[in-house]
């Protein structure tokens, strides 16, 4: 058997590569599963007979002890019945297993990830790690489980798509996306390919040359993110789609510059650089690279703001922030196609935040993250409406969790929690809170509050009205001429740090780990400085030796422009110069101090 290219399950070494190349941030998550094109059938469904014959014995050996009894979590196998044939029980188990399979992205199925070792990309599992995806030539249980999730039958194994890592290039350079590593699990069938461009940057007119070949080429005409999607068929079934992101921008990395040199930002107006930096944080939740800052410093500010919000990256940034806020991460990540498409639809359809958040709340992952009971009542109140749950709501939630009807304040008697959820999603407090959350990305609290009313009206009208409203807000003086600094959110802080120090974005795993560490201490005093220290001492940042800095004031000014978007005051220049030359100081310490000063925590 041919070894499978590791899809979502990343080997330890691949983890680092994934950070650099497969990052889910600008591109699509590995679980990205945009809906299949209308002219292609959906991916095959899991097959009952295959389960009974190939999968059930393994499940029974490893999962029965915890999951065939009460208390085994949401994955609950069928209770045994006296005299019931084994095949019949396994058929009932099959129905219990189905919700743990993601047809549009089978490699992301919870059935797989919960038993996969953490260092191979698995999720935490109280019962332990059972499998490794080690790329072995021999068929392993991992292969069998992935086949099952991918729709294998006893007579046919499905084809598998494999695309390489994220591609980085410049406008005008030819991009080749190769699908020749795709293969059929039976090995005998000839593959058919179907490519499409799932997303392009605003204003791009790029098209793929041959969507039926084993590779496609195109020449990006605009900077931004292109998403290329591929499905393959073995003549019997079409696979789930996989997507690769093509990042197109002029990029000069820190490593390619001579040590101690400066980035050239002094050629631009510091006020313009500051505005560009703020807009990037407002819309994309990250800092610009020096080359991006330099290029955009000469753009008309209103145009820049309006174009940033149309980038796929802006949708991605919203999605990551929203899923993290709602607790939909790791094995609780969204699974429904509508939720997974949100990064794209948010931008292309200018989806209002009320509708976008509702999609995430209606996704099955939300109910898993906040099961009926106090957890659900608390989530509805704190996460959606931003208030504490009332005692009456907590009591109603406890009754619903116990399977009893309950009187929900403001709604009346309900028999299950879904009616309550819909009631909250249709309420004005939720609309106002969702619009406020979106506006707070761009506006100070007072200005955001004043715009909530008009924003709710626009959101009710739909995508077009919301898009026009948002553009008006982004072009307003409150956004473009803001002087007052706002505190960065956790994701923005960490993404900005990676871009500023390493000129790359963090992977989703890095981001999640660092956000968790940040949130150990909520409030104004933050453990962020310690995280900066980890990166500064990691050896990944090419700090110059002191002797390589021939123009110390110029080097310090360059750091200020890069990290704070302004020139240093005389006092700052003097203090930094002294620390730069101090035996206990040096470039690392100056950088560390700048990135941990109070101003860096703001946007």
């Amino acid at each position, binding site marked *: 058997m041919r070894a499978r290219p590791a899809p979502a399950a990343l080997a330890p070494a691949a*983890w*680092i590569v994934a*950070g650099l190349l497969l990052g889910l941030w600008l591109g699509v998550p590995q679980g990205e599963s945009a809906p299949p094109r209308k002219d292609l059938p959906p991916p095959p469904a899991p097959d009952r007979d295959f389960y009974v014959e190939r999968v059930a014995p393994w499940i029974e050996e490893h999962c029965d*002890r*915890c*999951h*065939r009894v*009460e*208390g085994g979590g949401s994955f609950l196998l069928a209770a045994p019945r006296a005299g019931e044939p084994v095949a019949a029980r396994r058929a009932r188990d099959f129905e219990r297993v189905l919700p743990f399979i993601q047809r549009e992205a089978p490699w992301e199925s919870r059935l797989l990830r919960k038993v996969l070792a953490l*260092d191979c990309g698995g999720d935490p599992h*109280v019962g332990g790690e059972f499998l490794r995806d080690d790329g072995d030539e021999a068929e392993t249980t991992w292969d069998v489980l992935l086949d099952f999730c991918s729709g294998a039958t006893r007579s046919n194994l499905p084809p598998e798509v494999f695309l390489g890592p994220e591609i980085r290039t410049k406008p005008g350079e030819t991009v080749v996306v190769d699908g020749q590593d795709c293969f059929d699990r039976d090995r005998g069938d000839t593959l058919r390919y179907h490519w499409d461009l799932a997303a392009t940057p605003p204003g791009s007119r790029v098209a793929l040359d041959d969507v039926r070949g084993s590779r496609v080429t195109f020449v990006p005409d605009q900077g931004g993110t292109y998403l290329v999607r591929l499905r393959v068929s073995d003549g019997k079934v079409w696979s789930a789609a996989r997507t690769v992101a093509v990042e197109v921008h002029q990029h000069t990395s820190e490593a390619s510059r001579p040590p101690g040199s400066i980035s050239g930002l002094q050629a631009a107006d510091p006020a313009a650089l500051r505005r560009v930096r703020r807009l990037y944080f407002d819309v994309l939740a990250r800092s610009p690279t020096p080359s991006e800052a330099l290029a955009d410093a000469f753009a008309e500010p209103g145009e820049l703001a309006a174009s940033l919000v149309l980038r796929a990256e802006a949708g991605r940034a919203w999605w990551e922030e929203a899923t993290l806020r709602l607790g939909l991460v790791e094995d609780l990540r969204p699974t429904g196609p509508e939720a997974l498409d949100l990064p794209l639809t948010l931008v292309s359809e200018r989806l209002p935040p009320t509708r976008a958040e509702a999609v995430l709340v209606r996704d099955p992952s939300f109910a898993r993250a906040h099961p*009926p*009971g*106090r*957890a659900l009542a608390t989530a509805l109140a704190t996460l959606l409406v931003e208030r504490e749950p009332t005692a009456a709501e907590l009591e109603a939630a*406890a009754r619903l969790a116990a399977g009893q009807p309950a009187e929900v304040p403001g709604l009346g008697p309900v028999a299950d929690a879904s009616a309550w959820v819909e009631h909250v999603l249709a309420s004005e407090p939720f609309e106002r809170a969702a619009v406020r959350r979106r506006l707070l990305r761009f506006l100070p609290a007072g200005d955001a509050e004043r715009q909530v009313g008009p924003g709710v009206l626009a959101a009710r009208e739909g995508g077009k009205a919301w898009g026009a409203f948002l553009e008006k807000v982004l072009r307003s003086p409150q956004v473009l001429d803001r002087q*007052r*600094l706002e505190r960065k959110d956790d994701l923005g802080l960490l993404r900005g740090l990676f871009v500023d120090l390493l000129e790359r974005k963090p992977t989703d*795993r*890095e981001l999640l*780990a*660092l956000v*968790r560490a940040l949130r*150990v*201490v*909520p409030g*104004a*005093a933050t*453990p962020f400085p*310690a995280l900066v*220290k*980890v990166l*500064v*001492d*990691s*050896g*990944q940042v090419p700090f110059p*030796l*002191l*002797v390589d800095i021939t123009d110390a004031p110029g080097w310090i000014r360059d750091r200020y422009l890069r990290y704070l978007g302004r020139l240093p*005051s005389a*006092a*700052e220049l003097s*203090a930094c110069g002294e*620390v730069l030359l*101090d*035996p*206990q*100081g*040096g470039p*690392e*310490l*100056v950088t560390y*101090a*700048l990135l*941990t*000063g*109070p*101003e860096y925590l*703001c946007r």
Partner: protein
Amino acid sequence: MSLWLRSACLCLALASLLRPAPAGPPAAAPAAAREGTRRVVLLVLGGGVRASDLGSRDLMPGLAAQAGAGVRAEALPTQRATAWLCLRDLLTGHEDEPEAPGRPGTVHPTLFEALRAQPGLRAQDAWLVDASAGEEPGLEASSHPAFGRTLAASTAPGDGSFGAPLAAFLEQSGRPLPVDEQVWPLLRRLREVNRQAAGPFLPSELSDSLAEGERIERAVLAELDRKAGVIKAASVSDEKATRAALTVLGVHRPRLLVLRLVGAEAGQQGLAAYEDALRQADHAFQRLRSAVAADPVLATSTVLAVATETGRNARPGPDGVLGLDEDTPARRMAACVLLGPGLKAGARPRAGARPQDIAPTLARLLGVVLPGAQGRAWEECLLR
């Protein structure tokens, strides 16, 4: 920084290991703690500890020196033989949970949940630090529909509250270098000039939080830096857990911190290893006590409790092993010592006291009600 400078920094950092860590910026002294604002630090000695060894002068001299000033319960009979179920009893005040395989949680709310159900309390106010690295599930929260995971304790395994989420990241990036004491004034100066330059535009909470930020920064770096990887102790997991608990105590000043040590499991290797583990546990107690005493916020408000889960054979077998025979009376005997404000010095609970009483007593000290508890609070030992 040049190589020789790096080397110099490293040498100075290593030298700093020999010096006691400097205290962070002092915090304002609080008003006298009232019931309801009190804190509890519960040190649980798991792995099977003979009740008579808790606070014995030979093995736990630090605790023995303090025990007289607190409440001591030396013989608390338990029906259990399984250590983590006993811990669950300690946290819920309830014993009649069936011990079914595959039933990881309890339906009775834990002390953590009862505390966090109070308005305004956050996850950072309740902590479980377990040297067994979470091998026993369901201790930080019950599955009670009105409580449950929403009100669970925060957990910090041996890598610490910061080190645990960052473990994979640190493996990839490496641990940070220790910060020499002479570097802090330089950092403070640069941050201060930055604060002055940006001051008019900064959010007020950020411009005011530099000193508090440094306190957190020092604690986190102490947990993460390269010297933190060097551990010498009889039980490495107990030492790591103790260190994690000390960081939690210093950074969060929680209302409830439960630290569980399991080094006494070494009794299976022999009596000497068991005694070493208890001496280490006593050292952990003294470090916790010192940390509480050094922090003006904690000093006046914190009750220190030390309790065992299950007992152990009274005498070693012929092979030198201090065993865990379930049919011996010593195996089913626990003990407890309580120290701090709100307690009558030298008091002892009435006859009939049992381990399920500890949770209600601690709940009473915290000013919360523990629903479903079968035990009773030791009112006779508490100051009105």
